[in-house]
């Protein structure tokens, strides 16, 4: 028991994979069908194919970087590769990105909660309570969070997919056509840009040194990506097949609206969307905890502190302020789009760039 309580700084490759899936499946997935349909129209359901390949490339380079610098996180190796000043600047950008992403997720979550469940509760109260609860596990290290993610994954993902199954009878698969009408290049570009919305990959920047069997981290990450893109494929495809291209583009959260359309004559449970929102609550909780952990761990490493937990609660007012900053849903969506572009830079471009510079400057271990 004593060993169990003290061993809180290592996770298995399986736990890493579950964390990657859970962290990515936040509110963004409900808006994903709209943002992708805006980019490529009816072909948006095919984006998971190039998206999987590009995200796999990003994961590959992150794992290679971790092998070049064993036991080091991106905070250390980016300073070794890019030099102290540029490296620190990159680390600060990534930390700011994580803090802003937590705020964005919290705000989107609070907006959905207010519309669907807590009509009279002020948005500040929803954000504040969720933030404090999410900060608590983040103080106790990576292992409790990984266990929490496993429990959440095995409860919420089957429930979410089960609810989606009710929608399939409404699907008109003609809505998925035409395919490749605009050529494959647009699809490839959209697939590359979609990598920016996969926050789960960013875990590898910090978590790879915490893995018990580092050799299995690539395999575990690949499985995580496969599961993740399969879920996105199902959500995207079903949403597009039910609503069609034009309607999807006018819906703020098509992934949520679709659940509100469920109508079955034998169904004795009303307002199924409430059940769906409740599953999202559980999904969002580990995401915010994880981003708090990543930001505090990176900050602690940047300033040479041995404990990250002292930075968790001091980060919460910053996240709270950022979360209540946008005055309406439109502003939240603009911020989300901006963060997605930063995500493309951090995940789509930087791992390859860092790897190439490390190779040219002969930094790190053996090649």
């Amino acid at each position, binding site marked *: 028991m004593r060993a169990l309580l003290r061993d809180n700084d290592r996770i298995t490759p399986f736990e890493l994979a579950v964390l990657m899936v859970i962290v990515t499946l936040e509110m963004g997935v409900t808006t994903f069908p709209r943002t992708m349909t805006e980019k490529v129209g009816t072909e948006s359901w095919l984006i998971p194919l190039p998206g999987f390949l590009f995200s796999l490339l990003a994961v590959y380079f992150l794992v290679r970087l971790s092998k070049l610098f064993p036991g080091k996180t991106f905070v250390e190796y980016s300073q070794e590769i890019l030099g102290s000043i540029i490296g620190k600047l990159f680390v600060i950008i990534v930390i700011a990105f994580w803090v802003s992403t937590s705020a964005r997720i919290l705000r989107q979550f609070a907006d959905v909660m207010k519309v669907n469940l807590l009509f009279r509760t002020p948005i*500040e109260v929803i954000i504040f309570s969720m933030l404090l609860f999410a900060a608590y596990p983040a103080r106790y290290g990576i292992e409790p969070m990984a266990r929490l993610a496993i429990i959440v994954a095995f409860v919420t993902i089957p429930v979410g997919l089960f609810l989606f199954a009710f929608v399939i009878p409404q699907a008109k698969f003609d809505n998925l056509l035409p395919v490749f009408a605009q050529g494959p290049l647009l699809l490839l570009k959209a697939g590359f840009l979609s990598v920016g919305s996969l926050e789960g990959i960013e875990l590898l920047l910090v978590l790879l040194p915490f893995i018990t069997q580092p050799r299995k981290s690539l395999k575990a990450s690949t499985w995580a990506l496969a599961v993740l893109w399969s879920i996105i494929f199902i959500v995207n495809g079903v949403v597009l097949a039910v609503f069609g291209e034009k309607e999807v583009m006018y819906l703020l959260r098509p992934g949520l609206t679709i659940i509100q359309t469920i109508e079955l004559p034998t169904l004795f449970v009303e307002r199924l969307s409430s059940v769906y929102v409740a599953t999202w609550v559980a999904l969002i909780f580990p995401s915010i905890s994880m981003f708090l952990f990543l930001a505090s761990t990176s900050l602690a490493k940047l300033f040479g502190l041995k404990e990250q*937990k*002292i930075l968790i609660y001091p980060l919460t007012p910053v996240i*709270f302020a950022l979360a209540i900053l946008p005055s309406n849903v439109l502003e939240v969506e603009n911020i989300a789009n901006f963060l997605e572009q930063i995500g493309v830079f951090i995940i789509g471009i930087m791992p390859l760039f860092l790897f190439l510079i490390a190779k040219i400057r002969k930094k790190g271990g053996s090649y």
Partner: protein
Amino acid sequence: MVILSDIFSWMKYSYNIGFVFFIIGVGLGSIFLDANQMKSKGLTRESLVSKWIGISYIVISIFLYILVEFII
């Protein structure tokens, strides 16, 4: 100048006494809980950092509240 004016108008709208208590609470937690915990673990630097974070949070939150309520 436009950005500054936006920040001030946002603060006027969102920075209320509840937010001040939240920041002061975080500051007090840093000073009395985290700093002591770090000290008992023998982490002197972390204890000091925690204390300074706490003090600066309390001071800044009160200063901002005075700014929002009486000056802007």
